[in-house]
């Protein structure tokens, strides 16, 4: 059972790994350490009409105007690892100026397979907690175990450099794992859920 992180005022990460038969073999959860400056810039764009600076996945700086606020997209399609929830192998601790997942594991038909994102803007939670939900399923279609240390949330905005990092975390603070990484054995699948959350 995943323990709810009721005091987490950030992204609650939850993950589950299933074997070939669909049986749950490991799971974990942790509170994010990193929304990035790009995420703060989006909030600024929402609250008043001034252009904001955002940094794309190559660390190039672009000016984003408010007309693009309705074009933010995290719902990446199957096979697209340029945005949505992205996995990587770097374990450097997150920083506010992170601009991309540092060592992305690419989508592959014979390795880590990225399924389509699922997003729901509907707020859930009760009492002092509210969150919305983003999730993605991955499958190891290769013959070797895949080990990852980092997870990011990328957004597609059709201006400037197109792909912008909103959050990046390492798995080192995950509870219930026992290691500072997560593994997916051949034929196994992973469901990763992000719950951006506020608490009063």
């Amino acid at each position, binding site marked *: 059972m995943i323990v709810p992180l009721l005091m987490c*005022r950030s992204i609650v990460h939850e993950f589950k790994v299933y074997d070939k038969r669909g049986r749950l073999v490991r799971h974990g959860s942790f509170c994010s*350490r*990193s929304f990035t400056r790009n995420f703060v810039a989006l909030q600024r764009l929402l609250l*008043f009409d001034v252009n904001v600076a955002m940094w794309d996945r190559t660390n190039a700086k672009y000016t984003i105007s408010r007309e693009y606020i309705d074009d933010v997209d*995290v719902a990446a399609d199957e096979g697209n690892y340029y945005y949505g929830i992205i996995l990587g192998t770097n374990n450097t601790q997150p920083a506010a100026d992170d601009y991309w997942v540092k060592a992305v594991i690419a989508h592959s038909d014979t390795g880590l397979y990225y399924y389509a994102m699922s997003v729901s803007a509907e707020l859930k939670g009760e009492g002092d907690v509210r969150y*919305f939900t983003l999730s993605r399923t991955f499958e190891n279609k290769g013959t070797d175990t895949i080990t990852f240390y980092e997870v990011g949330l990328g957004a597609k905005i059709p201006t400037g450099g197109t792909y912008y990092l909103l959050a990046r975390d390492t798995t080192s603070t995950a509870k219930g794992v026992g290691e500072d990484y997560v593994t997916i054995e051949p034929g196994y699948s992973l469901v990763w859920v992000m719950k951006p959350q506020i*608490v009063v």
Partner: protein
Amino acid sequence: MSSHIVFEYVIKDKRGRVRKKGVIKGHSFVENYWKLVSMVVCGQDSTGVTDVNGNSKNINLIDIASDTTEPLSFTVIADEGIDAYGLVVGSGTDAVKMTDYKLASKISHSDTGLYYLGMSYSEEVTVPDTKDVAYFEVYREFENRSTDTDVVIYEVGLIYKAKASTGETIYVLIAREVLPEEEKITLKPGELLALKAKIQNKAIEET
């Protein structure tokens, strides 16, 4: 990492000398704000909010994107004398709830009482060298123009001016914080309150 809003203030006397400084601790975003954020991140067309009158209203994201008219329809930056939106203060002491949609008891703008000056904002999102936080700020000053009455403040809030999908202008509370009795802000006649709201993501490990 913690995503929240922090209110900071400075009280200056009639001569401009700083009499008191403080930080209003709390986390204070309310449900309305997260509905707006989830709409943006998830690319939804619209979201339902509760306005300061307690009415359910719908806001369209495309209207925010195309908001190029003057004065702006979607903003928290209020002009002088406007207390309907922007940074606002009140005298209510009710505890903050996620579903709050108004201040418990807002103190209105007055030429002979609490005078609301115009708002301003920081030019950029700031990331200090420590790289553990990213933030931007909005500012407002309030002046007690009464000659003989203190203004006592127990609550602060941030209200978003928006346009409902029906076309009407609405006001939506997005953050509220309440000060305990021992930390209430007392503004004497002639004194100035400089209030700052810092919207930030800060690296704080929480479980």
